[in-house]
């Protein structure tokens, strides 16, 4: 099934099993969101559990925090990740800190679903990947699924988690198809997944960059280079061990992330490897990320901004051949 269908199934299953789960967001009901990811949910669960909201990202996120503190499990839909700019106070100052500030007495089982990713010709305010911001806030968990199966299992876990979780879907993944296990299952937060095993170079990739990395690995195989592709799946909690062990094994690592390069998630992932795999590294860890420019509209320019399979493969060749 598609990535979008997997998200839809996860939501439907959790809405069925737990009466305290509800969805609130802009055009989430009849419209099923502009991405059609929620199609059919309001028909099954009704407008009391799938709420169309005004265009008030801060308001609905704050509402979600309060509902979560008082017995509900809200899933707040923030249409574009670019609008995280509007909810950072509710996320960072309220949701993330409530449990700690209350000495562990209050909790906020809130899930905020939003999107990331460029190359849709949507220009600078609808193409950002801002996961580094939320990953920098203690108290939040941050999930970046890369396959339909992971998306479904991770979302179910996120909704059941007693902490605020920011769940970020790449818009370019929605149409991607993949195997999804039948029946009930969940995927734990904090466990990386080796998407492809290899010996010569480690490629740590997040979200849709996992597909880019796997395509690069194909190219590299043709050149006789064996690449291991590791998907952290969650930035917080982060499975340091799996990343570090892979880098120790191969001695070379590339981090591929669609956020901007400067002060981005790729810096943390690279720093983790450089710290803990230092003595095994044969070369510096390389970072591939979005250019440090606002995402331009013009196709020939936008295509320059995001890492491609060719770029990843080329970087790997340089690393391996030295």
């Amino acid at each position, binding site marked *: 099934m598609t990535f979008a269908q997997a998200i839809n199934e996860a939501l439907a299953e959790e809405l069925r099993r737990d009466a305290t789960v509800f969805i609130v967001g802009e055009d989430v009901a009849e419209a099923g969101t*502009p991405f059609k990811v929620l199609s059919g949910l309001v028909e099954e669960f009704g407008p009391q559990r799938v709420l169309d909201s005004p*265009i008030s990202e801060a308001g609905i996120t704050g509402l979600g925090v309060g509902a979560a503190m008082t017995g509900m499990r809200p899933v707040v839909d923030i249409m574009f990740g670019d609008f995280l*700019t*509007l909810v950072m106070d509710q996320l960072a100052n309220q949701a993330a800190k409530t449990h700690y500030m209350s000495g562990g007495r209050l909790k906020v089982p809130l899930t905020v679903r939003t999107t990331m990713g460029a190359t849709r010709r949507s220009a600078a305010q609808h193409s950002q990947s801002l996961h580094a911001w939320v990953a920098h806030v203690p108290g939040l968990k941050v999930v970046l699924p890369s396959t339909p199966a992971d998306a479904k299992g991770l979302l179910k876990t996120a909704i059941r988690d007693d902490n605020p979780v920011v769940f970020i879907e790449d818009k370019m993944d929605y149409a991607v198809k993949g195997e999804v296990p039948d029946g009930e299952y969940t995927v734990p937060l904090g466990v990386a997944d080796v998407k492809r095993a290899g010996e010569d170079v480690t490629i740590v990739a997040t979200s849709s960059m996992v597909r880019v990395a796997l395509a690069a690995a194909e190219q590299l195989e043709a050149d006789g280079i064996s690449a291991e592709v590791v998907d952290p799946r969650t930035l917080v909690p982060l499975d340091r061990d799996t990343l570090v062990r892979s880098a120790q094994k191969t001695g070379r690592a590339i981090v591929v992330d669609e956020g901007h390069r400067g002060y981005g998630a790729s810096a943390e992932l690279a720093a983790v490897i450089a710290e803990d795999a230092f003595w095994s590294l044969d070369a510096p860890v390389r970072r591939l990320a979005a250019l*440090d420019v606002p995402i331009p509209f*013009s196709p020939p320019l936008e295509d320059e901004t995001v890492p491609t399979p060719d770029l990843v493969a080329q970087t790997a060749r340089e690393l391996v051949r030295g």
Partner: protein
Amino acid sequence: MTTTAPGTPIAAELALEMYGRMTLIRLFEEQVNELYRSAKMPGLAHLYIGEEAVAVGVCSALRRDDWITSTHRGHGHCLAKGAEPGRMFAELLGKEAGYCRGKGGSMHIADHENGNLGANAIVGGSAGIATGAALSASRRGTDQVAVCFFGEGALGQGVVYEVMNLASLWALPVIYICENNLYNEYTHYLETTAGEILARPRAFGIEARAVDGQDVRAVYATTAELVERARAGEGPAFLVANTYRYHGHHVGDIDRSYYRSEEEEQLWREERDPLIVLGSWLEDQNHVSAGDLMRVGQEARTEIERGLAFALDAPFPDPSEVTEDVYA
């Protein structure tokens, strides 16, 4: 573009000029839809068709050096403030010759020579900018005004209330134009908007009016009054223009049956079309003949065709430009 005193009947030339601008917008947008359907335009666009009288009525009451801020549905504002179709098409196609060298696209066209500080893809995102431009005008002692266009959906954004409060406190020359086309994307505004729209600005002590957004003469006359007040230092104003978008929320929004009816669309197209409303008035008053209107329409058509040809031929920016203009 000059303003008239409150109530002054609108001169036929001005009315005809506005008819021409509205026609230009109508044809521009129909062409944009074509570009999308023929897969010649990257991405999406939000068409202004049906709402032409709002942008044209408002901008006709402004001077070239007055400012506007625009929205994701901004082509009409941009043309009404004086932009050329050619450079606009070029921008929509991501060409170097575009107003933003292809970097902005449909949702970010800016044309500062004509006072357009830019479209905005964040709903309510330009409310602060317009209010700040008004502060700038008052601090620099000019008599410029700033006009902030936004859809009724932007009433959901808190920052709009924050800046209306500032504008009222400091008597800033800013006019908030709320284009109420009934829908926030695919949701009717009554499902998202409690209470009375006009009561909101009034709660902040802001002069607020409503106008038929399909009657360009009414939009012009009311705006002219509010602009005069603002220039005279009498402070901000809010105008809700009741209007309708004929097409989808964006060019890809074809099946709309789940959120609104064919009948509703037909009613607006047939009974409330701004071009028909103004056109018949001009004829009834014998200000102009049907021939005049056709001539004006023909001129607009020619301008659009020329502009489109220019844009289609124009080159894309060189990929190396991607790293330019990040910092001034």
